[in-house]
């Protein structure tokens, strides 16, 4: 390689690599170091405390509760979202059957895809305000208003969607599902369209019904996309910061009485409100480890023989 070429390569790399090192890699590495200190963030003086932050962490009832909530999200958000997205994607791509016996989507599938996907372009902050209004705990809230109109909820006792310990997590899950279904629907649709039509037609000739076609053909051939979706939704379930911190009660959310707390909200409260930087760093490390474990476990658990077509 000529000398000029080296200079060119270096010239192109220097700015991106420098930015990346300063703002991404170095902070990531520093977190591990700070998590072993009692740093308060105000001063530059701190002392090494070993694993004290971590032992404190696992005696912190609020943080343990938060981990538990993240695990609940981890179980329910991917399952519900993927099932709904698969169902809709199948309906839109192969659910309709014309009289000629061919395989096609139901009428208006393009329209449905546009509508379903739209929540994905909205920011979670917009979602937080929107669902804050939908979940209002009086007759002015859309959901309570609707249930009252239908006579399912008494005027005097509206449902406190975001203030009832047993309801709040489900209310949050509903928002994430509402937001995500359209996205995974489009993802699965793209994968379904890659499945050759003759496979469907062969199944049809063999007399396979819709359910059969779905479980024996579509799902196995879609497995790669389902796996990807599972990992992505799992990572989203480990986060949940915006929705919890803006929709639920308390400073940085988590209410009522820590019943909707997630790891991210506990961490941000400790960092921004209490100034416990070292402790917050330890939480960041735990979040990383749990996220990595989740990704690996999910990839393992969903591993199947790859089918070429």
């Amino acid at each position, binding site marked *: 390689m000529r000398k000029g070429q080296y200079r060119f390569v270096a010239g192109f790399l220097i700015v991106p690599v420098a930015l990346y090192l300063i703002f991404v890699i170095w902070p990531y590495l520093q977190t591990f170091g700070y998590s072993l200190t009692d740093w308060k963030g105000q001063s530059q003086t701190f002392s090494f405390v070993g694993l004290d932050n971590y032992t404190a962490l696992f005696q912190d009832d609020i943080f343990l509760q938060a981990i538990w909530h993240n695990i609940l999200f981890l179980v329910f958000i991917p399952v519900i979202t993927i099932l709904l997205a698969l169902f809709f994607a199948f309906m839109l791509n192969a659910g309709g059957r014309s009289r000629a016996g061919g395989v096609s989507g139901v009428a208006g599938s393009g329209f449905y895809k546009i509508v379903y996907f739209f929540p994905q372009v909205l920011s979670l902050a917009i979602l937080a305000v929107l669902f804050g209004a939908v979940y209002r705990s*009086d007759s002015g809230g859309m959901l309570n208003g609707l249930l009252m109109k239908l006579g399912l909820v008494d005027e005097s006792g509206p449902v406190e969607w975001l203030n009832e310990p047993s309801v709040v997590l489900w209310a949050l899950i509903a928002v994430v599902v509402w937001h995500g279904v359209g996205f995974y629907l489009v993802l699965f649709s793209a994968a379904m369209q890659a499945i050759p039509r003759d496979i469907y037609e062969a199944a049809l000739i063999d007399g396979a019904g819709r359910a059969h076609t779905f479980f024996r053909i579509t799902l196995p051939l879609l497995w790669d996309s389902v796996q990807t*979706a599972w990992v992505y939704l799992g990572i989203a379930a480990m986060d949940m910061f915006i929705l919890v911190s803006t929709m639920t009660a308390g400073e940085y959310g988590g209410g009522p009485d820590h019943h909707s707390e997630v790891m991210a909200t506990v961490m941000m409260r400790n960092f921004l409100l209490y100034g416990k930087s070292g402790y917050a760093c330890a939480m960041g490390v735990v979040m990383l480890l749990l996220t990595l474990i989740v990704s690996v476990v999910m990839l393992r658990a969903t591993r199947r023989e790859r089918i070429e077509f």
Partner: protein
Amino acid sequence: MSAPLKTASPGDSAPIGPAVSRGPVEPRDERGEGVVLNVFSHGFLVLWALMIVLPLLWLILSSFRTDAQIGGSAFGWPQNWSLDVFSRAWDKGIGAYFLNTVIVLVFSVPLTMLFGSMAAYVLARYQFWGNRLLYFFFVAGAMFPVFLALVPLFFMVKRLDMLNSYQGLILVYVAYSLPFTVFFMHAFFRTLPTAVFEAAILDGASHTRTFFQVMLPMAKPGLISVGIFNTLGQWNQYILPTVLMQPQSGDDPERYVLTQGLVQLQQQQGYASDLPVLFAGVTIAMIPMLVVYLSFQRQVQAGLTSATLK
């Protein structure tokens, strides 16, 4: 359902045509089941579409209602048909938040694309020591949760004296968008033909010039997808500005971005009880997204879903 085909029993060697005319009676109940299933599943599709559209529509309409109306009942028909509420929301801060977001994105998105494609191009097209290592180093960044970096990042930006400044947020946005941009553009530059590149070099173009005038224009489809992805991602970013864009002292002006501003407005309006303003603010924030989405619907869907195809 597939009634015409099914009437031909296995082993029936007659051509399909006659078979259809032969057995019009037999599959009747199956067809009935199909219709029920069709109504059922179509009903589900319509229901979900309504569940998406109605809350959004309800929110937009609510900005034309009075505060008393909003508190009283969820479904009072709006009576206050004036655009006054939107200008009030704009003055209450939405205008400034909107402008802040635009200022940041005008710089951060092009810079992300520029630096991202420069790094991706060099990594994809040139052999040098440490190439693979550098590539993995970039891609690995996409795997870690941003929370892991937040605390030291805050102090890093503070040390650079860039807290609550546009340039600080721009640089951080660029840095955190690099992993995906490099990953995607790297794959894209690999698919481009070598012949054009060689022709340009033979014609005496420098490497830099070849990149900007030959390779970059050829990568336009990839640039559009990643560009849309980055624009939406940075427009909707909330955690980074929450940490980095807080006024640092009493006389430090507020430079909230739109997402932060909306949450701020929500908290204020809860006490000030001027909910129409909040809803109008959300409507204002939603409209550009709606316009972009409807005009580039296909590219947006492709751009966003391609992010997961790692």
